[in-house]
């Protein structure tokens, strides 16, 4: 055999292989792995979202809507004064809508002057806020500045209970759970968290236990209170705190009923439900009674649309005791994957959602948080998904149309291509799915969110002082100095 020159045969093989590759590329399909279709029975999918996609994705905007939107997106956005306060005009590109948060800012202002009052925020979200990510950081910022202790309202079961660090919840396996994500007609109406739970306690006891986490401002469970709904039958619950057992009866007479576990604060407790299987259970509230409280109502797979099936009367009953001042809607991740860039159907659906919230929580301020950046592979490169910007614009449009505040998370985190950077940063700030943030990234997002809200608050205070004229108090003069720098900031933008 000719051993001397096998180099050229070797080269020939590698080179011919390259030509063969070019040939294969032309005749074989582009992708080797099909996207596997998953049996939807066991997978969390937002049924309302699927319906809307099927029904409305083809609907086109009518000419009149288009014209109206063009006017919105092109011209200046001016505001009418609320209680004598009018924020400067904005442009669509940089819309924040602080004007529509004035009632919330007013409550914060009252809290700042009277530490005994309170402010409550409901934070609705999807898997981005799972395990209290982002929300715990927003909460922490508020409690640090305005006071308040406790993690707020907590559901019974949750897919993300194990990953939640701010409070530890362990529960028996026999809870029956209904979620607004995939149930249209629940046995009893959904609670403020979009869920309703039933203690399936005929055979074994149904229980849940809570333990405070190590996080600042939530190292104890303050005034733990059970929330439950209406039923024809009564039931009992045993609260076990340390070695003591407190037996209490559940009287489900009203749409929403509350039962205090104990006054003051405990480290941990367990609740055993007895003969309570017909009573809708909603969850427990942990708050110190003063300061700011932020409830995390996250649900994996949620598009936000299911909120539209809330029962307004039940929500009003919740609001009677919880008294919300701000509702945050943080959605988008789950509507990015449908291959469409026309989000008119979503805009319409979410407008209904905002209206439902206005009806349920009268006078509440509403804040829309846009989708974050998300990357998809195009050819061989990860880039911002082409649906992100159209979705973000749709979210901005319905925020503006429904007179809600708006946080543009996409630009806040760096805009085009930022998710790729967050993932590749060292240490990384987002997961390899190029969608979800990790603890570190979530903290940064929480701070960005809080900073924008707070920026609005500082502007509000400056405007309020201008309205009230030169003040006499010394303390106010101090803030006056602050407000000068704030005004400067706003000029810089």
């Amino acid at each position, binding site marked *: 055999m000719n051993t001397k020159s*096998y*180099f050229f045969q070797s080269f020939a093989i*590698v080179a011919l292989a390259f030509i*063969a590759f070019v040939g294969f*590329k032309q005749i074989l399909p582009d992708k080797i*792995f099909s996207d*596997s279709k998953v049996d939807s029975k066991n997978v*969390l999918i937002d049924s309302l979202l699927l319906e809307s996609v099927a029904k409305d994705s083809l609907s086109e905007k009518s000419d009149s809507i288009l014209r109206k939107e063009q006017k919105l997106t092109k011209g200046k956005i001016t505001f009418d004064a609320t209680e004598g306060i009018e924020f400067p005009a904005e442009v669509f590109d940089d819309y924040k809508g602080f004007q529509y948060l004035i009632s919330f800012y007013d409550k914060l202002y009252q809290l700042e002057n009277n530490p005994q009052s309170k402010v409550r925020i409901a934070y609705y979200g999807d898997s981005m806020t799972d395990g209290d990510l982002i929300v715990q950081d927003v909460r922490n910022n508020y409690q640090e500045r305005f006071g308040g202790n406790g993690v707020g309202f907590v559901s019974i079961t949750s*897919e993300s209970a194990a990953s939640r660090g701010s409070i530890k919840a362990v529960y028996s396996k026999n809870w029956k759970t209904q979620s607004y994500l995939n149930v249209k007609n629940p046995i009893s109406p959904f609670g403020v968290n979009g869920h309703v739970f039933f203690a399936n306690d005929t055979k074994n006891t149904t229980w849940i236990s809570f333990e405070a986490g190590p996080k600042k401002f939530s190292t104890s469970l303050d005034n733990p209170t059970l929330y439950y709904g209406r039923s024809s039958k009564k039931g009992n619950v045993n609260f076990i705190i340390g070695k003591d057992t407190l037996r209490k009866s559940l009287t489900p007479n009203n749409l929403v009923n509350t039962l205090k576990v104990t006054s003051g604060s405990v480290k941990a407790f367990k609740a055993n439900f007895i003969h309570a299987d017909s009573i809708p259970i909603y969850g427990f509230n942990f708050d110190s009674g003063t300061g700011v409280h932020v409830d995390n109502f996250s649900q994996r797979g949620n598009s936000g649309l299911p909120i539209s099936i809330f029962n307004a009367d039940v929500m009003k009953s919740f609001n009677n005791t919880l008294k919300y001042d701000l509702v945050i809607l943080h959605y988008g991740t789950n509507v990015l994957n449908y291959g469409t860039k026309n989000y008119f159907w979503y805009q319409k659906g979410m407008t209904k959602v905002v209206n439902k919230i206005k009806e349920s929580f009268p006078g509440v301020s509403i804040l829309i948080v846009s989708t974050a950046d998300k990357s998809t592979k195009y050819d061989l490169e990860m880039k911002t998904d082409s649906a992100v910007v159209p979705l973000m614009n749709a979210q901005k449009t319905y925020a503006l149309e429904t007179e809600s505040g708006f946080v543009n998370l996409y630009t806040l985190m760096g805009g085009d291509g930022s998710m790729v950077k967050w993932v590749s940063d060292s240490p990384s700030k987002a*997961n390899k799915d190029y969608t979800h943030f990790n603890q570190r990234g979530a903290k940064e997002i929480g701070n960005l969110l809080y900073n924008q809200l707070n920026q609005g608050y500082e502007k509000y205070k400056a405007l309020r002082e201008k309205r009230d004229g030169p003040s006499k108090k010394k303390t106010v003069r101090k803030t006056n100095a602050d407000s000068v720098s704030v005004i400067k900031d706003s000029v810089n933008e």
Partner: protein
Amino acid sequence: MITSNSINNWFVQNFGTITTEQIIGWFVYNPEEKLLFNTGLFLGLFLVFYFVYAFLRKTFYLRLTYVILFSLFFYYKSSGIYFLLLLLSSVVDYGLSQVIYNEKSNNRKKIYLVISVILNLGLLGYFKYMNFMIVTFNDLFSGNYVLHNVFLPVGISFYTFQSMSYIIEIYREEIKPTKNYIEYLFFVSFFPQLVAGPIVRAKDFLPQIYQKLNLTRQDVNNGLFLIIGGLIKKTVISNYISVNFVDRVFDTPMTYTSFENLMASYGYAIQIYCDFSGYSDMAIGIALLLGFKLPANFRTPYKSTSITDFWRRWHISLSTWLKDFLYISIGGNREGTFAGYLFPSLFFFGLVLWGMANVNESYIPLGIAIGSIALFCLTFLLSGKRKQTAVTNFNLFTTMLLGGLWHGAGAQFIIWGALHGLALAVHKIFMEFFPSKKESKGPGFLWRFFSIVITFHFVVFCWIFFRARDFETALQVINNIGQLTFEPEQWQVIILGYKNVFLLMLFGYVWHFLPEGFTTTLKSVFDKTPLVLKAVVLGFVYWIVYATAVAGSQPFIYFQF
């Protein structure tokens, strides 16, 4: 008729238009796009390089210089300006090795050797361990030292070790130094093994430089077979399952079910094997095409029947390096040395401190600490040759601790090394009590099967520490798996949800556990295929690599149970 225009059109259709910017991009360092063997750019560059190389096969220094220049370019594409570091350290090491070789006095030889070891390890230490040490110091003594913004040059762990082997072998008079710097630089910078091993030993490699360059048909067959296997292992199996499953679970283990955590652990075991051995195979294959034989690095390690066996089959070039230069240097099985006792003592001391620190919350950490010390002591106290076994085990443990640390700067790598070190010691004492019968047919099938299963699961358990971002995450994964209950319906749903991932995992494991005879048959069929058909097979594998690389990641699935 084919006009130049139509050729141009065809080209644009298939490859897109090529801009000057792109062409510059091929030759300029880009931290986002490392030059890996499994990229199209490498294939293109290699084709051009190889063509010229074939013409230079009869020259000597011209060929060496040509390969060195390509190697330096290859390294520059991976690490940018740090290719200068490679050059600098090679100049220093070459100089020191000459001094050691020419020095007559043994004491002075030793001094120069120590200088060179300190320099090499110092360099490695600065780039790889500086921040780890600062963080550890800050944690322990609540210090406030600022972290250095250090870039970790690719492959520094590999070429440092390779360079050290050259000097130590000269010191031990096992080899003669190269005739000049060019030959030495060729050995250190040889691009196939430069960034990810195998760690080639001077005494295996240097003689090949001086042989007449020869490439047989069999070499090419072997090389191509390795490259094909390596490409499939690395780009198809490893990359796909890591991006679409394993990474996600290890990012946030608590948001996944116990079964998903368990599967991610199995998935990681096959992923790291395919990633590492696949890349090694490609390196060995490419070297073969250039006419150089590098040692095998992996021999189906998960078929091991004991942990000792595992270390003879896993990353062989590293474990023999550690054995020859670390284990033997600190005394081997002959004598106890200060270093041999220092590291295990420090480790166990740290373990007890950790147990004490957590005693308020749980006694388990302290129990683990005391238990592992007791276990380690028992491995030599129970032995017949107590003193010698103690020395051996301490030195072995040191080797594994430092070997663990070599893989990365982090406590979890030390834990990983310690677990393996402990297991090696335990296996030793076990063998002393139950020696395997040599003359009979060997252990029965059931026993063998049982040993493989136990060893495999221990290795997978240790990989959890290796993969997890930090110690806490590793514990989360283990805790989560601990809560596994038998729910076949749930498992089925998960498996169907991640169908591609699980199929690839299965493929990886089946391939791994195939009898050797099967692979040999496959190889001999491949050897006999005509040249053109081989090219077609290779081309098809290129396409598989391409099609996998193009595949977007599988969208997120949230199961509801």
